[in-house]
């Protein structure tokens, strides 16, 4: 059981997550509501907590179902938020959902010692302990989501990059959030909230800082994300750090580097 053997599944999952999350991240950034994914992730985590409270194994299939129901409900709610005028009110609602969902999870999980451990796992994730079977199932699920997105990619693009005040078909909006929620559910279940949020936002944002256009940003986001994941896993091994947190910290560092490079490039002109 060498270090490479131990880290291989974690890296494979990280790549899968980055490829999918950067795509959705660009959409989320374009819409200008960043915290929706944090809130969605937290409601999915709340779903897992409720499942655990009702006696289900937090790493079993029933748990995933609970998480998905939570994410769908939140997704439906956020889709309806489009009707609320002004981004401030929307941000407030999303922030409240996040905080209250977190508090409810803590309340539920503080009932038992194992619950507290699982609470830690919901935030830090168990990137390190993912199995090849879970990676296979995740790849299949993400492929299905990718297919769905690919079939309607032009309309989804218009949805996100278009006017934020217009209210295009609610069905399209819901379709977008449905696939988003499905993806988030699986990634929170496997990798935890911190990693999911970081993968969603940081590589996409870093790419947006240095490039324009959806496709270039997508590619750059993948490169930055995978580089960050590699560096994070290496740091976790060398410095004995928790894997999820190390990856998130390294991605943050890369963002600073990219931002600094951009600032320097601007000042040279």
């Amino acid at each position, binding site marked *: 059981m060498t270090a490479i053997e131990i880290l291989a599944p974690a890296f494979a999952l990280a790549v899968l997550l980055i490829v999918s999350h950067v795509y959705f991240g660009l959409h989320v950034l374009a819409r200008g509501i960043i915290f929706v994914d944090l809130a969605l992730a937290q409601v999915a985590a709340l779903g897992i907590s409720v499942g655990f409270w009702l006696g289900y194994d937090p790493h079993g299939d029933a748990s995933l179902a609970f998480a998905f129901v939570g994410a769908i409900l939140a997704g439906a709610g956020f889709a309806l938020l489009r009707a609320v005028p002004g981004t401030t009110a929307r941000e407030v609602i999303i922030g409240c959902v996040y905080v209250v969902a977190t508090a409810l999870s803590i309340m539920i999980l503080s009932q*038992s010692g194992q619950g507290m451990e699982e609470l830690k796992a919901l935030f*830090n994730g168990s990137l390190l302990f993912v199995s090849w079977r879970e990676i296979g199932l995740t790849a299949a699920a993400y492929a299905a989501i990718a297919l769905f997105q690919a079939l309607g990619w032009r309309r989804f693009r218009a949805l996100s990059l278009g006017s934020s005040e217009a209210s295009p078909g609610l069905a399209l909006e819901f379709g977008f959030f449905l696939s988003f929620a499905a993806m988030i559910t699986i990634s929170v279940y496997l990798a935890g909230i911190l990693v999911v949020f970081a993968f969603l936002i940081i590589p996409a944002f870093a790419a947006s800082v240095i490039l324009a256009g959806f496709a270039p940003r997508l590619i750059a986001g993948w490169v930055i994300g995978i580089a960050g994941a590699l560096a994070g896993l290496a740091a976790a091994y060398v410095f004995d750090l928790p894997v999820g947190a190390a990856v998130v910290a390294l991605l943050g560092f890369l963002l600073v580097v990219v931002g600094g490079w951009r600032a320097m490039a601007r000042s040279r002109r």
Partner: protein
Amino acid sequence: MTTIPRRALLWIGAAILLLGNSATARAELNVITSTADLAAITRAIGGRAVKADSLTSGASAPHFAVPKPSMIRRARDADLLIVVGAELEIGWLPVVLSSAANPRINVGQPGYLDLSSSVSILQEAGPVSRAQGDVHKSGNPHYMLDPQNGLVAARAIAARLAELDPANAAAYQAGLAAFEGEFRRKWPEWQRGFTPLRGKSVVSYHRSLPYLARAFGFVIVGELEPLPGISPTVSHLEALGETIRRNNVRLLLMEGFYERRSAQFLAERTGIKVAVIPHAVEFEAGMKSYFDTFDGILKSIRVSGAY
């Protein structure tokens, strides 16, 4: 004139209530314990003369208990508090006690019984500080996993019960005698049950099982936690894999309140079997006596298929 009989009734009623209450208050000794094990032993010895309750549930980790208002209420009403000691409860009990402000159960009073001074404690080797993780500086507090310590605890509890409630001293002696009889019956049974493990090396999740190992003749060669209270890291898993290979380890023993994924991961990579063991009474429904814990541990080991 018509108000006098009504007032008299009021006084008579109050007198009845007060007398009635104080009568029931003296009926049982109100005992609270920090763990479910101690409550079970107290009940076994005290029988109907005591009302014993644990502040923590047998399903959760005693060192990570969350202080709750109900604990303060129960501490306020208690006549006797029995604790494991050795800093096991240091994360939550002191707050509960100071909030309850019950002078009967303060440290040093007859209503406070710390069992760690009666049993034989295993010290952790080397200098102790927070840098070593969540290490307890007064030795390893998980001593109740050696049934011989349970016996010592039972004797100390019986003595204290008799001291606080001399009227029922004979009943406590009888309860203790029954407990000792049960122990003498179970001890050889357990020794037989643990024979497959004798002399073998196992790994545990947390450094909580040295007493169990000492009582039943096996060796713990490593833990999933790199340091007590710290989650497993990559380099530690690597080293642990090596330890497992070198010592021919076939079994991981872990308490039920820890996350399972790291154990599953280890099992998949190294082929060892995982036994989730009860660490105390009431971990599962139907576990009532202290002795059930060890029966439960043996059952989990058998079910794991390691031996």
